[in-house]
């Protein structure tokens, strides 16, 4: 079983690119199973169902979607085994950009949209810097020069990644991504994360509603950058 984790900013085209890659994998006689993780609501499972592949949805609800995705890797893999799938494609919600939900023995794919501008690769953090493959979408909306500058910025942030220029509408780049997925690693035992999750947990994480500073405990960071622990 191979594991592919697809992360990226909302609206970057993760689902559209992945659907084209699924078709490519099917043409090569493989059976991928898809798990779509989202926060509150999704209808993307219906899109994948139309392709005739096994699909499951996980909604993180009150839990951080990245943490939820990591916590449920074993369960997802077991489910994919039951579907007799060759590859598990795990599309995450990936929102706060502090952690990256990539275990060591997976193919880590980060999808990023070129219209977010050349500073975006620097903002995305470990989601991009620890990825194996960076898929750049919406390239048809900017000039070639802008695409090349964007590419340069990605390589500054992650010099070892493989860049795939894709188009979720036409399917450009899907065959290349499918090829990389086929060449990805087999799932290992005792997987560990590539990047540490954030250190901090505070009272807001556990349901505090009051805004004023005096009500908060935990690992806290001030606007000027000063960090403190407040509590027992």
């Amino acid at each position: 079983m191979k594991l592919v984790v697809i992360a990226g900013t909302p609206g970057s085209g993760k689902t559209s690119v992945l659907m084209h890659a699924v078709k490519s994998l099917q043409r090569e006689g493989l059976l991928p199973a898809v798990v779509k993780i989202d926060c509150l609501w999704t209808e993307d499972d219906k899109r994948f169902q139309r392709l005739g592949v096994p699909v499951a949805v996980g909604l993180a609800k009150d839990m951080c979607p990245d943490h939820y995705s990591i916590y449920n890797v074993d369960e997802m893999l077991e489910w994919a085994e039951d579907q007799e799938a060759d590859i598990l494609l795990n599309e995450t919600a990936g929102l706060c950009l502090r952690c990256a939900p990539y275990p060591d023995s997976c193919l880590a794919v980060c999808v990023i949209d070129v219209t977010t501008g050349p500073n975006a690769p620097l903002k995305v953090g470990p989601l991009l810097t620890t990825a194996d493959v960076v898929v750049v979408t919406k390239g048809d909306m900017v000039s070639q020069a802008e695409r090349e500058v964007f590419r340069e910025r990605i390589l500054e942030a992650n010099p070892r990644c493989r860049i795939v220029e894709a188009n979720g509408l036409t399917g450009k780049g899907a065959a290349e991504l499918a090829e990389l997925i086929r060449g990805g690693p087999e799932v290992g035992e005792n997987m560990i994360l590539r990047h540490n999750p954030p250190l901090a947990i505070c009272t807001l994480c556990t349901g505090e509603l009051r805004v004023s500073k005096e009500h908060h405990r935990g690992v806290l960071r001030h606007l000027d950058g000063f960090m403190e622990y407040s509590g027992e």
Partner: protein
Amino acid sequence: MTEERACKLTIIGGVDKDGNPDLVELLDMHRGEIIGIVGPTGSGKSSLIADIEQFAQGDTPSGRKILIDGCEPRAETRSDPRKKLIAQLSQNMHFLADMSVEEFLRMHAKSRGRSPEVVDRVIELANTLTGEPVHPDHHLTILSGGQSRALMTADIAVISDSPIVLIDEIENAGIKKKEALELLAGEGKIVVVVTHDPMLALMTSRRVVMKNGGMMRVIETSTVEQKVCEDLAKVDDWLMNLRETIRRGEVVGAAL
């Protein structure tokens, strides 16, 4: 094949939108040649340009194949900008990048493995194509459509400087189109230009006629057409001058 200089670009025909074979089965383009692509909206002009841009190998909806000097291009020439054989001026009229003109051009020069000194040359050239000067400190996102296209054109001529240049509809750009095409054509390049503009279409040596997604026929520009093109160039100059006169708030003089 040489990485730096492509001498021949070949299109091996595929199919149109209904799956019928291209009537033009094979088309060779050579260095120093400007080739036009003409046809109504939706006839497949941009798709043909896209086939060339991504060096299609039967893996696009048209099923066409693109060869460079008779061979299938290597994978790295498809992606690495330093080895890219193709420069492309697409229909985009604006930049989205939130940075200054100078910063952007420096970054682009770096991505193409060029020295930062080319930046001034790009801006200088851009300003020969547009009536509204572009300044290095300008933010990209505030440039007008004309300024953006002038800058993209100059950027391709100086920084991208690839042996194959693809141009999608330069005429709507509000820049000096004849000068722009001559600048992009440079010396010894293969230039493919999608156009609805009679002057640009007749500046080419041959033009491919598209219909329903397929390549219908290839027309050689006749000597009569070349003469028409010269007349059109005079009309175009006249129009450009009128536009500038009106822009400056002056009164238009005599008729042509």
